[in-house]
């Protein structure tokens, strides 16, 4: 059965998703995953991707010619909303596979690449991103990982960092330096790298929240076939803009909706338990202020989605504004939970997912929002320079 059969009737489509979620999502998945090891969590996410694949919900938003469902943005929003409402698992292992890879290949890949790689995702292929380097973070264009042409191959040497789930990845979206003698943005080339190539070594990085979602890539004489280049040689910076732009959209929307259900469940529980913080007028005021900001953030996320289908989207700084407002709000909400959580809220708990379950874990994890995907400082530069026309000096 494919839920996609119901796509022409949006309410029925939603009903089908809701029914499927009720059947397939194990009610205890969160409790189980809360204490799961990395490996168990990865296996669980692969299982979940398999289930989505069975009903046509693995890559519903891709063009039909590449194995997708060809669904509209409205359908994607409905899917994201239903998944958030059901508190179904996230698909973070596949974030790059589902968002960044197609966001890059669809506009810039050649036909062979699209046919080869897009189809692989529904079968469970995991992608990672090799962009940042130890000395090229916010200044990404200064990257130094070298690619040197050798016959019909390129030979890669260098180091990449902050590469989510690279320990489990099959392929990597890789940015390299092919010409060190030109202005830094002009000498970058974009490749697809097979993570099983000889010379690729991955070391996990342990984060402040105790988990290890990132890896560091050490690349020593890795040979990549020239046919794996995306776009032209030295044109990689332009291609990379498509990768970065793909982050805006449905993925943040789902996050915003999840937070709504989480915070609502937290509040209901507080009410029925007569939680102490409700009797503190100042905390109570702070909480309703969060809700006002959360509604505003959810509305802004909807505007980003509306805008993403218009020609103005590529020049808009609204995604940066949304990132600034929603990630800082998330951090403040998590901080609030730590403050009302007392000593118990800081009891060590290593979680695979982020509900408002362990306040300190959630609080620590919230930094991924303000730092990843271009730090909030970089977003401020974007808003000021591109949005407000303040001069770059």
């Amino acid at each position, binding site marked *: 059965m494919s839920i996609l059969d119901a796509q022409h009737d949006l309410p029925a489509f939603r009903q089908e998703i809701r029914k499927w979620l009720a059947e397939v999502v194990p009610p205890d998945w969160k409790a189980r995953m809360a204490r799961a090891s990395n490996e168990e969590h990865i296996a669980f996410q692969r299982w979940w991707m398999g289930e989505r694949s069975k009903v046509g919900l693995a890559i519903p938003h891709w063009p039909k010619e590449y194995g997708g469902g060809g669904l509209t943005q*409205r359908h994607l*929003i*409905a899917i994201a*909303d239903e998944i958030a409402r059901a508190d179904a698992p996230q698909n973070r292992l596949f974030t790059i596979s589902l968002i960044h890879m197609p966001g890059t290949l669809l506009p810039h890949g050649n036909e062979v690449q699209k046919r080869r790689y897009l189809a692989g995702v529904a079968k469970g292929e995991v992608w990672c991103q090799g962009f940042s380097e130890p000395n090229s973070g916010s200044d990404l264009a200064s990257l130094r990982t070298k690619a040197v042409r050798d016959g019909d191959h390129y030979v890669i040497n260098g180091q990449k960092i902050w590469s989510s789930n690279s320990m489990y990845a099959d392929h990597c979206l890789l940015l390299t330096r092919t010409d060190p003698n030109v202005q830094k943005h002009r000498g970058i080339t974009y490749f697809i790298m097979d993570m099983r190539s000889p010379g690729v070594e991955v070391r996990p990085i342990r984060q402040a929240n105790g988990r290890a979602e990132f890896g560091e890539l050490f690349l020593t004489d890795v040979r990549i076939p020239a046919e794996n280049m995306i776009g032209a040689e030295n044109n990689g910076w332009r291609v990379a803009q498509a990768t970065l732009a793909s982050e805006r959209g449905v993925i943040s929307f789902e996050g915003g909706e999840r937070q*709504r259900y989480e915070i*609502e469940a937290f*509040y*209901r529980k507080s*009410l029925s338990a007569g939680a102490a913080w409700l009797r503190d*007028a100042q905390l*109570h*005021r702070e*909480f*309703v*202020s969060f*809700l*006002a*900001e*959360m*509604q*505003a*953030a*959810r*509305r*802004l996320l*909807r505007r980003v989605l509306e805008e993403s289908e218009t020609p103005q989207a590529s020049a808009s700084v*609204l995604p940066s*504004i*949304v990132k*600034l*407002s929603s990630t800082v709000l998330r951090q403040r909400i998590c901080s609030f939970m730590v403050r009302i959580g007392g000593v118990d809220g800081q009891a060590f708990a290593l979680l695979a997912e982020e509900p408002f379950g362990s306040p300190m874990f959630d609080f620590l994890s919230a930094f991924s929002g303000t730092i990843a995907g271009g730090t909030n*400082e970089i*977003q*401020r*530069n974007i*808003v*000021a*320079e591109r*949005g*407000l*026309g*303040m*001069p*770059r*000096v």
Partner: protein
Amino acid sequence: METASTLDRATLDALQESIAGVLAEQCDSTELHAFIDGKNALDKTLWAQAGQLGWLGLGIPEQFGGLGMGAEGLAILHGELGRQSSPGPYIATFSAAQTIVETGGQEICQTWLPRLASGDISGAVPAILDERGLTRSGARVSGTLRCLGAADAAFVLAPTDDGWVIVDMAQAVVTVAPMWDRTRDVIDVHLKAATPVGILPDAAATRAALTRAMALAVAADSAGAARSITERTIAYMKTREQFGQPIAGFQALKHRAADLTTKLAVADEMVRHAVQRTVTNEPDAELWTLLAKSEVTEACVFVTTDCVQLHGGVGFTWDFDPHIFLKRARLNEVLIMANTALRDQAAAALAAITTSGRSALELEL
């Protein structure tokens, strides 16, 4: 998804553009400064023009001589008035009118709304909606109320210990209370055994309606004012040079400008959300209206304060714009009720909605 009672976007955009155009011309910085220094009667000329253009009837139903554009139309008008820090008794008059529409009854509506819609008269309302009111003795009311409204307002809408009343100002002694915010009129209305010309018996509903109308008005005004002074400040930063470059090029200042811009985007959405929930008459409309006022007025105080600072020395002068907006922001902040009290009411509303098994967080996709 647009609901049936929501006006279409193009109509609202056209309205906004026309209001903005008129105000940019009639109420620019030069005119505004001259008004503040008592050199013109900008409040009166703007009011007359607003009457001719139909703005004063924007929120009033068509059957009473208005344009029937409700909370959506009013939010746009208040936003634009805030943008230019326009002087005049708009918040008081429009809020009184909206309250009369909701709880005034047919006779009161027919008596007052057409004259309000045409701009023949303006109204006054209490600046603070706490439990204090006029004392009622038989058919007569007495007491003093600090109100928002022009010295020549035709009536005051006021609470008594038993329902709300409309009193003709002919029966009142009015003294003007000069404010730091010279773009607003605050008056003290003294009544001694005055006979009300109208009674709105449902005190709770009337108070709620006035609170909602004023909250939306003040929030929209604050959002517009904050956006405008931010734009003016960024424009100034692009021309002001120090260390051989425009100060807009310094990253420390860029980041502040970006944060202000983010605050503005959030404030606008808070206003839109409250307006939308009000227009479609949702059970959570009150909650979001109270929060829009408390959040957005505080955001406006933050923004206007930072805009004074970002201007440097000239930001502290009478001749530049920031202090005008800062003063307007500070008055907006304290109108209706202290924001802490509004948040307490919002918390109570949230608990009531949640306990009844509903969600206060619904949003159209």
